[in-house]
């Protein structure tokens, strides 16, 4: 039962962040293509947004690890 929980936590928990990271990447690539001069600003904003999106996936990972090892 616990193994099922762990699998579900990771599977469902990384669904949202994966889509979010894909959208962030594609929109920022579009923006850089549209305006190469602003590329460093866009890059900074992209990395920032990427960190926030990935943190959500990390929360799911931490819960899965806690369920497995505690």
């Amino acid at each position, binding site marked *: 039962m616990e193994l099922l929980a762990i699998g579900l936590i990771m599977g469902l928990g990384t669904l949202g962040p994966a889509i979010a990271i894909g959208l962030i990447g594609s929109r920022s690539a579009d923006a850089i293509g549209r305006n190469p001069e602003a590329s460093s600003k866009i890059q900074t904003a992209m990395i*920032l947004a990427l960190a926030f999106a990935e943190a959500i996936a990390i929360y799911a990972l931490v819960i899965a*690890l806690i369920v497995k090892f505690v």
Partner: protein
Amino acid sequence: MASSPVISIKAEPLFRLGELVVTNSLFLSWITALLLIAAGLVLWLSLKPVPGFLQNFFELVLEKTLEFMDTIIGNRRQSEKYLPIVLTIFLFVLTANWLGLMPGVGSVGLREHGHLVPLLRAPTADLNFTIALAVISLIFINIAGLVALGWKRHMSRFFNFSNPVMSFVGFLELVSEFVKIVSFSFRLFGNVFAGEVLLVIIGFLVPYVVPLPFLLMEFFVGIVQAFIFAMLTLVFIALAVSHEEAH
């Protein structure tokens, strides 16, 4: 079949110094701090007008960091003001992450209660370390805001009773300050601890050659997470210091 690897989220205690329980990750974090302090002292005592290799390298790091901070904060004077905390967080987390990948960390230890207690463990894989660092960052961000804006303007960001919407926004800002502690610490902890678990499991399954690409990935994760922690601290400092009254 050998026994399965034992992975524990909590850092294992090694010895006690009076009331303080010293864990293996605390021990390695002391070593990291001593390493950085020693490097700093060596550089400081050997400063020359015409720099040697090491001094040149760190001057480059300093220049690039200040340029990067300029793009986020806007002016050089303020970048220089906040450079120490940002660069210290970056170098400390970077060194801690990389030292956690050294051979012997997590693998050499004592046998207690039937399983291995490693003598050294990555400091950032211990939630205590990351929470402490996150709390320090948050306290500094708020102190920077207080010093730059004054008590009233800084507090008006959280306690704004001019109209119901702004009160709610202020309350959300207050809650989000505490959520930042959780998010900073769990981001760093999750990345490094998951990397550690990954390396242990891969090493357990196929000990030869296969762990190499995963070690490389952990190497980059170390850099990226250190950079993100420092950069998020910087961004929140910039936000706290430039909060306009019309917000």
